C-alpha cells in the first residue's frame, strides 16, 4: 500500500511536470505578445523591448522554462505581469471561494443524485425511473451558462429570492451551486440507480425482507451503503471536471474564485497566472482521482481484501 501510494505520488508529480511543459510551450508559441499587451497600443518598440527584457521574455524558450521550473520546485509560481504580485498568493486568495462553490455544487449533486437514484431503483420502470433516465441526459446536454442565466432570470430577476451576483453571504452561493449541482445530479442518479438495482437483487436483501424488516430500513440501512461506492469515484472525477469548468459559472455569477482570476488573466495575456491556474486545475484532477483510489478501500472492506 505504501509503495503503491509512493508510485502514485511520483506519477502525479510527473503528470504535473508534463502539464507545465505543454502549457508553457503552448502559451509561448501563441501569437499573443504579453510585452505588447502590457505596454499598450501606443508604446514605442523600445518600451516593448524593455518590458520584454524585464520579464525575461527575450531569453530562449528553454532557458525561460528552466527558470520557471526552478521556481516551481521551490513552490514559486512566478509573478503576475499585470498585477506585479506573486501568483501563488493571488491563487491562494481566490481558492477558498472556488472551493466553497465546489463543495456546495457537489453536495447538491450527491443529495439530489442519491435521492433520485434510490427512488428510480425502487420504483424501477416507473415514472420517477423514466424521469431520472431522461433528466440525466438533459443535464449533460444543457449548456452551463444557459442554465445559469435561467436560474438568474427566475430566482434573481423575477422572484428576487437570491442576489444576482457577488459573494459573501450564504444566499450568494445558492444559484451557482444549483447550476452546477442540478446539471450534474442526473449522472449521480444513474450511477446510484444501477448500483442499487444490483444490490437489491442480492440474497441478503431477500433475507432482510424475509425477516420482515420495513422497506425503508432495508433500502437505507442495508442496501444503500453498499450502493454508494461508485459515488466516491464520481466525486473524485467531478472535482477535476469542476476545476476545469469553473471559469464559465464564475463569469456568469461574478464569483471571485480562481476561474474569474483565470478569465481576467486570459484577457490580459498574463501568462504566469494562466500557468498557475492550469497547474492548480491539473493538480485538482489528479488529486481527485487519487483521493477516490485511497478512499474506496477505506469505505469498502471488499476492495481492501483484494
Amino acid at each position, binding site marked *: 500500500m505504501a509503495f503503491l501510494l509512493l508510485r502514485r505520488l511520483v506519477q502525479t508529480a510527473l*503528470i*504535473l511536470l*508534463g*502539464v507545465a511543459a*505543454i*502549457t508553457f510551450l*503552448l*502559451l509561448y508559441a*501563441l*501569437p*499573443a505578445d504579453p510585452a505588447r499587451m502590457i505596454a499598450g497600443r501606443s508604446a514605442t518598440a523600445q518600451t516593448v523591448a524593455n518590458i520584454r527584457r524585464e520579464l525575461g521574455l527575450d531569453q530562449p524558450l528553454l532557458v525561460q522554462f528552466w527558470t520557471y521550473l526552478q521556481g516551481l520546485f521551490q513552490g514559486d509560481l512566478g509573478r503576475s505581469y499585470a498585477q506585479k504580485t506573486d501568483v501563488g498568493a493571488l491563487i491562494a486568495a481566490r481558492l477558498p471561494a472556488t472551493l466553497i462553490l465546489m463543495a456546495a455544487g457537489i453536495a447538491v449533486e450527491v443529495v439530489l443524485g442519491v435521492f433520485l437514484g434510490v427512488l428510480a431503483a425502487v420504483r424501477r420502470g416507473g415514472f420517477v425511473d423514466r424521469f431520472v433516465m*431522461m433528466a440525466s*441526459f*438533459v443535464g*449533460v*446536454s*444543457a*449548456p*452551463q*451558462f*444557459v442554465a445559469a*442565466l*435561467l436560474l*438568474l*432570470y427566475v430566482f434573481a*430577476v423575477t422572484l428576487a429570492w437570491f442576489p444576482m451576483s457577488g459573494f459573501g453571504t450564504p444566499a450568494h452561493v445558492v444559484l451557482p451551486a444549483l447550476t452546477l449541482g442540478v446539471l450534474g445530479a442526473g449522472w449521480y442518479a*444513474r450511477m446510484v440507480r*444501477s448500483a442499487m438495482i444490483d444490490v437489491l437483487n442480492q440474497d441478503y436483501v431477500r433475507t432482510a425482507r424475509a425477516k420482515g424488516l420495513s422497506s425503508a430500513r432495508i433500502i437505507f440501512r442495508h442496501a444503500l451503503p453498499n450502493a454508494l461506492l461508485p459515488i466516491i469515484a464520481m466525486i473524485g472525477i467531478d472535482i*477535476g471536471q469542476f*476545476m*476545469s*469548468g469553473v*471559469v*464559465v459559472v464564475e*463569469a456568469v455569477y461574478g464569483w471571485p474564485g480562481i476561474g474569474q482570476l*483565470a*478569465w481576467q488573466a*486570459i*484577457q490580459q*495575456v498574463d501568462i504566469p497566472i*494562466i500557468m498557475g*491556474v*492550469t497547474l492548480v*486545475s*491539473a493538480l485538482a*484532477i*489528479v488529486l481527485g482521482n487519487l483521493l477516490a483510489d485511497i478512499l474506496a478501500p477505506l469505505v469498502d472492506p471488499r476492495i481492501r481484501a483484494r
Partner: protein
Amino acid sequence: MQAVKAMVRQPAALFGLIVVVLVVVLAIAAPLIAPYSPDEQMFDGLTLEGAPLPPSAQFLLGTDTLGRDLFSRLLYGARTSLVIGLVANGIAVTIGLLIGILSGYMRGIVGGALMRFTDLMMAFPALLLAIVLAALLRPSLWIVAMVIALVNWVQVARIVYTETRGLVERDFILAERSLGAGHGRILFHHILPHLIPTAIVWGTLGIATTVLLEATLSFLGIGVQPPTPSWGNIIFESQSYFQAAPWLVFIPGAVILLTALSFNLVGDALRDILDPTQRGRG
C-alpha cells in the same frame, strides 16, 4: 438501416433522430427558409426606443439588439454549429482512433509513450485549455474547430486503446499473424473494422459535446465572431440585455440544449444497437 429500425422502436431515440434530421435539414435549407437575411439590421426590427422586439407574426422569434431577425440568425447559426461539430469532432475522432490504435497495438517505447501522453492529456483541464487557446489565437470558425478537436480526442483514444488491447489478444489476430500477415494488414483489415462501431458512436456523442463547447466559447466572446451567427454568440451579444429581452437568451439556449440532447440520445441508442455487450447497462 437496421440501426434506424431499432431506433424507431425507442421513443427517446426516435425523438433524438427526428430532431437531428430536422436540424440538419433546416441548416442546409437555411437560405430557403429564413424570412430575412441573418445580417440585415432592420429599421422596423427595433422599437422606437431602440429595444429588440418580442416574438410576433412578423418576426417569429423576435429580433435581437441590432434589429436582426432571431429566427433567421438561428437558422444560419445551425450551419455554424453543425460545421464545427462535424469538422472538430471528425478530427478528434480521427486523432483518437489513430493514437488509440497505435498505442494499443504497439508494444514497447512508442506505444507506452503514446499512452503516457494520453494519460497526461486526461489530467489536462480541457475546458480551461480550450478557453486559453481560443482567447489567445485570433478567433475564427476554423480556429474554434481546431481548438475543440485538440481537447476532445483524448477520451476516444482512451476507449480505442482499451478495445485494441482486447482485440490484439484474440485468436483470430494470432492466427492472422501466424499466417504471415504484416502489421498494416492486421491493423487495417482486422482491427480497424472492429473499431468502426466505436467511431460511429463517438462520432455522434462527440457532436453534442462539440456543440456545447462551441456555444460556451462563443458565449465567452472567444468563439465564432459576429456577424457570423452562432448559437453561442447570439447569447453572448444579448446577455447584458437578458432581463429585458429574455427570449434572446432562452430561445437559442433551448435550441442548443435540444440539439445536444438529441445527438446524445441518438449516440446512446447507437451504442446499445452496435455493441450488444453494453445493452441494458447504465
